[in-house]
């Protein structure tokens, strides 16, 4: 069954200059997808469309069986909170919160994920701790290190924990490795894939770095699926 479906999705910032024009794209449940595209190929716009922050001018986007393009803005916000985990390129964490609070933050806006986390680990805090330990941050957690004292790689792992808590259906990562060196990057990707597989979540990772593609089930080139970006990329 397809978890993410894009059907005739068109988006333009200005009329007559489409940034996104994807006739058809389907991603199966549990798939690990690598979406490769250079900067300027409409990556950011696609991410904002997938997370429901932008609405396409036409077409339909379905995630986990729900047509998010027919939802109201606040319904889309709630949908995102419940079903989508998001990992930024960097600076994923709120510096004034502890590691655990940063992870638990994802459950603050979603009752569904909160209930799931409680069902899985007993409490939201325990679910956060479990994830942080699985992601190799046991020492940092027990030392109560402030977020600012973590390395970039460690910060990205905390972001993964936050995206995974309460097992959302889809994980979307926006260039999560671009600030990491090669070794850290590989460990990070392997860890991410392991965690995602354990939870049967669907992963969409967007990056310009095509050396990542061997780690994934399938690679989609944005150039191929997006008819709009083909002509005026770069």
């Amino acid at each position, binding site marked *: 069954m397809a978890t993410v479906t894009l059907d005739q999705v068109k988006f333009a910032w200005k009329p007559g200059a489409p940034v996104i024009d994807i006739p058809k794209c389907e991603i199966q449940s549990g798939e690990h997808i690598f979406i490769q595209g250079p900067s300027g190929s409409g990556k*950011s716009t696609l*991410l*904002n469309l997938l*997370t429901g*922050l*932008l609405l396409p001018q036409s077409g339909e986007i379905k995630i986990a069986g729900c047509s998010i393009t027919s939802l109201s*803005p*606040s319904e889309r*916000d*709630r949908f*995102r*909170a*419940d079903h989508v985990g*998001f990992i*930024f*390129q960097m*600076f*994923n*964490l*709120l*510096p*004034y*919160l502890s590691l655990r*609070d940063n992870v638990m*933050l*994802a459950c*603050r*806006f*979603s009752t569904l994920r909160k209930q799931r986390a409680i069902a899985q680990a007993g409490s939201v805090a325990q679910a956060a701790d479990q994830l942080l330990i699985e992601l190799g941050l046991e020492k940092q957690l027990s030392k109560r290190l402030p977020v600012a004292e973590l390395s970039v790689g460690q910060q990205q792992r905390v972001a993964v924990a*936050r995206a995974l808590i309460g097992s959302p259906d889809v994980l979307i990562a*926006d260039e999560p490795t671009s600030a990491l060196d090669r070794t850290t990057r590989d460990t990070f990707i392997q860890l991410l894939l392991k965690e995602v597989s354990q939870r049967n979540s669907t992963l969409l990772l967007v990056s310009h770095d095509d050396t990542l593609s061997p780690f994934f089930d399938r690679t989609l080139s944005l150039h191929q699926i997006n008819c709009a970006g083909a002509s005026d990329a770069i």
Partner: protein
Amino acid sequence: MLFNLALASSWSRRHTLFFVVLTIALSVALLMGVEKIRTEVRDSFNRSVSGTDLIVGARGGELQLILYSIFHIGQASNNISWASFELIKSNKNVAWAEPISLGDSHKGFRVVGTSSGFFEHYQTGQQQPLVFQKGMAFNDLFDAVVGADVARQLGYQTGSRITLSHGIGSASFSEHDDRPFSVVGVLKSTGTPIDQSVFISSEAIVAIHDGWQSGSRIRGQQVSIEEVRKKVLQPKELTAMLVGMKSKLSTFHLQRQINNYKAEPLQAVLPGVALQQLWQLIRVAENALRLVSGAVVLAGLIGMLAVLLTSLGARRKEMAILRSIGARPWHIIILLVFESTLLSVIGTLIGVLLSIGILILAKPVLENQFGLFIQSTGQSLDDIPLLAGVVLAGAATGLWPGYRAYQMTAADGLTARC
């Protein structure tokens, strides 16, 4: 839950926000101080004299007369003759008349020469008579009665020996040190200039100036206390007099008679009318003060607005993260409004405490220098709507940065790269 987040976020920026709170606190302290002084000035003046129907003094400004005779502010332009006093006192409609002779002081406190009847007739506040805390009215020539503040500040009790100084002011060089007085009575506190006065008899005023001329001792003339006692100490002049009428109806008649008196330029004023004049004078200053303090509060809020708007740039990522985990636009607005409300509440509370602290420190200065008696340094409940207004305005200040943040997150989406 959103509030914990807002608290943690504000706390992380506490070094900047401290100054916002400080600005608001200072502006609220100023506002409260102005309000307090405004109401206290009114109360203090209204409280100072009651039960007196007419104040009589040398012709001049009506306001000036009440200021120097009752509030001990400024000085009389002229004295009036004792003969006039006797004449008015003997009027058939007059119930009582008490003399007031000013011009001497004791360690910065004014000396009032009067008669012992003053303590029976003078009233403050809502027709409250003067009450002796200790002792009684003066009886002997060299007896003195002191007000509550004089006794407290100088540590006087009945039996204390004091000497008076010629002239007004705490640094007088001509001392009446050859005529010591003994304190026989201490008055209860009234919150009026009475508390800051030393009372002696009108005859005693004559006695301490015996052997003086034009404000200094006549050389070579030493008159002993025993010799002074034997003399006839009939005062020739006085500064002002307080008159109580048998019937209020005759007040205006007597006032007209006094004002038209040909033998001496006298004037009689109704205390209430003179106070009314004072309000008209003060109202302009009051409004100007309120306007200025209001403007300062506004400046404080604008300062907060500037800081909040500036902080948005640095908080872009914070907003994007919150949006990514499902925070709705109104969450973002609430976050900023909560912060501005928090800052306003803390600032207002500190401001109120600050104004109370400053008033406690300034109280003695206000009493000694300006004759302004502050009854309580705490804030009255009347100020609550004003304070609530400040907090509300502060909370509303957060709406604009909140809206800007909402616009920003809508434009940035999840791709703010800062």
